[in-house]
């Protein structure tokens, strides 16, 4: 490989209490495998809702048979915060959004059908961009696979993206579209999720919301996508949950935040 491994360490060691909490949480989710936490038996069904059709749907969603497990990609719609295209694969292809194309990150921009490939590799979770057409990183044309650094500005044809790895202990990354280019379906940002994804009001979270202190962590457990909250949430109509599996169509609601997952068509 024609690049050097460069450790990124723009963040000092966590000092504040809140930071330590996040770190312990992330440690927990990454290293402490706790099988069997998410199972049907731990779920307590709420009373069947009355006449509201919306509530009814939540209720029936708790029936696993009609809920589909999350696979490679999904859209995460967070109320009052934004919509995010979350990619779970270690390797994603960026290219033009065309009917029938199977790029992971479809861009509505003047770019090639397959313009670049981003791969997550190693324990450190390094992201390497392999150009498949004209690509510039930080204004320098690149021709070979290149390691991405926090804050890098990537230019693919007419599309500009900023690459960030907000959290020092999570290997998940975020791509923000800058300027007039956009993804299809529309999303405010692309999240390359490895093991965890943190939604909270800290600037080092992958998704930052401006509000009272509240954190929700999405994490993988074997083949499942789960979420854990530091406050009880309503998970698919089941109240007072702190942890549970997420499916396409899942809805998570707390007093301070609410989001739902949607399958990418």
């Amino acid at each position: 490989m024609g690049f050097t491994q460069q450790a990124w360490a723009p963040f000092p060691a966590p000092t504040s209490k809140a930071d330590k909490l996040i770190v312990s949480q992330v440690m927990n989710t990454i290293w402490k495998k706790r099988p069997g936490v998410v199972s049907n038996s731990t779920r307590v069904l709420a009373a069947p809702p009355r006449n509201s059709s919306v509530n009814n749907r939540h209720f029936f969603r708790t029936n696993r048979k009609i809920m589909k497990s999350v696979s490679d990609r999904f859209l995460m719609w967070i109320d009052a915060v934004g919509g995010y295209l979350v990619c779970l694969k270690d390797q994603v292809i960026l290219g033009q959004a065309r009917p029938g194309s199977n790029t992971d990150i479809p861009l509505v921009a003047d770019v090639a059908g397959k313009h670049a490939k981003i791969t997550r590799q190693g324990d450190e979770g390094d992201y390497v961009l392999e150009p498949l057409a004209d690509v510039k990183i930080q204004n320098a044309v690149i021709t070979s696979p290149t390691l991405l650094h926090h804050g890098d500005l990537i230019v693919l044809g007419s599309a500009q993206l900023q690459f960030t790895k907000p959290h020092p202990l999570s290997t998940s990354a975020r791509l923000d579209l800058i300027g007039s280019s956009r993804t299809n379906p529309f999303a405010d940002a692309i999240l390359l999720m490895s093991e965890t994804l943190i939604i909270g009001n800290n600037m080092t979270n992958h998704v930052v919301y401006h509000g009272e202190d509240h954190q929700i962590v999405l994490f993988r457990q074997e083949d499942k996508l789960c979420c854990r909250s530091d406050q009880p949430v309503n998970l698919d109509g089941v109240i007072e949950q702190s942890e549970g599996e997420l499916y396409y169509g899942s809805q998570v609601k707390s007093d301070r935040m609410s989001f739902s997952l949607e399958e990418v068509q």
Partner: protein
Amino acid sequence: MKFTYSTGDTPLDGYTIKRGLGRGGFGEVYFAVSHVGKEVALKKVDFMEADRGDNLILNIHHPNLVLLYDIKHTENHEESWIIMEYMSGNSLRDVLTRNPEGLSIERAAAWFFAIASGVHRLHENGCVHRDLKPGNVFYSEGRIAVGDYGLSKLISHSQRNNHTRSIGTCRYMAPEIGKGNYGRQIDIYALGIMLYELLIGDIPFDGESDAEILTKHLTQRPDLSKVPSAYRPAIAKALEKDPNRRYQSVVEMMLNVPQPNYELIPELQRPQLPSEYLAALDQINASDDRPTLEAKPVDPQNVVAPPPTVNPPQSESTITGTNIPTQQNVPVRQPQVQTKSPVVNPYPVPISQGKPMTWQDMAIRELTLKDKSQRISELTSSMIRSVVGAAASTTLIFGIYLNNQGLSSVESTQWFIWLMSIIMLSSWTVLVVGKFWETSRDEIGTKRLVMFGVGAGLGALYLGIGNFLKLDFNDLHSSNSYWPWILEHWRFSTGESPSYVHFAVFTGLLFSMCRWWNHATPVRNSRYDIMSAFLFAMVAWFLPVAPQPLMPGVTALTALVIQFASPSYTTAQRKEFETQASTWWQHG
């Protein structure tokens, strides 16, 4: 923030909700996608009657206004949905939250000019925004657009009271909004507050409670010491308490704000400036000796180095883009130097903090806005009515009292003339003084002193008229001594004619001991107040004002004549003021 609908719901046929965006002034706003993939923002409001005349706002187009596509109603007629352009970026509220110290001067000015251009187009189309605030200004791909316009007007036709308007709105509300009768100057006021906030990061009038903020809006002068000096005159004038002293148009205000250097802020598009502004600018530049393309000194601290290598997402500097300037290079102009006039509080009644608003407060606020000619015409009609009242009451006295006193017809006529003239002159005096004092509710001591002086003068005048008519006051004065402690020489005694001092002092006391002026203001609880008239008569009797017992009756009748002559607010108007007083910041 809780939302009624979530991803996948289709409350409005043809659109699928993706997520909640926020809560505007009138309801929840969602991001939704139509069946064919058009991304829109949907605003849910309670069902409103489609009034064609008001829907004209749907067809106002300007790059600095959020585009409204349509308004649709659900089949069950329970909800209406406003379908509008989706602005993918953040609102100015978010931008200001991330920049608590304010934006750089260039960015602040660019935001201001964009907002002002959009608001100007609204005004041009005869629409007042009424709810301008950072949460209603949006950013998307370099474009700044004002949203939520015209909605208050549309929605005011439906059940406005059912909508709880978001807290914090009052931070941008002009003082006269509570009155419910206002024009585009309220948008100018809000522009002034927003320009201040863009530069400083903080608003000029803030407080713990809505009441505190409102009081400050009404009474406090903004502290402009932190504002860059070039922007002070514009903000000071836009934040005048009296709408007539503010800028009368957005263009006028824009002319007093220095333009930003757009080359330093490539991420922001140039606004579509009003043609009036450009024309006025050309004219000023033509008459100016100064070079037109003068480089504006820029504080080096405020220039953000382009392109930053390590930059957290969602900061102000990430909104960079390649935007081709849409307009010719507009010359940067130094602001006109204005001599700052002292800000005078137009409301003489300071509304004390914590004290609830009463309907009188609201009524007095409205009275302060009357102009001179209106006051004079009101006073004239009151005085004419008082002549009628005086004639009627004198006839009454004549009928029930003078007739039976054994006077000759000549004497009776003389008394009739005297009584009518004193009732008329007294009520005229009170009406004139009351007109002056109708907007003030304090300074009672001063008012009493003035009334004593005026009353003393009138008393002397009355005796003068009486002497001219050759009246013998002893004819009607009862010789019974009501009040033995009154000094002998203050009383009439047979064979003595009354002195001028006697008349002056007693009439003066009668005028100062009673609050006559309260019967000449429209701010009264009821038009006729018989009880007060009776009390005034008692005062006249206790003093005693001679001749007795004629004068107590004259006093009571004079009070009634004044009440008859000066109209008060009707019950309906009082009710309206009461509602305003309880919810007066919500009137939008």
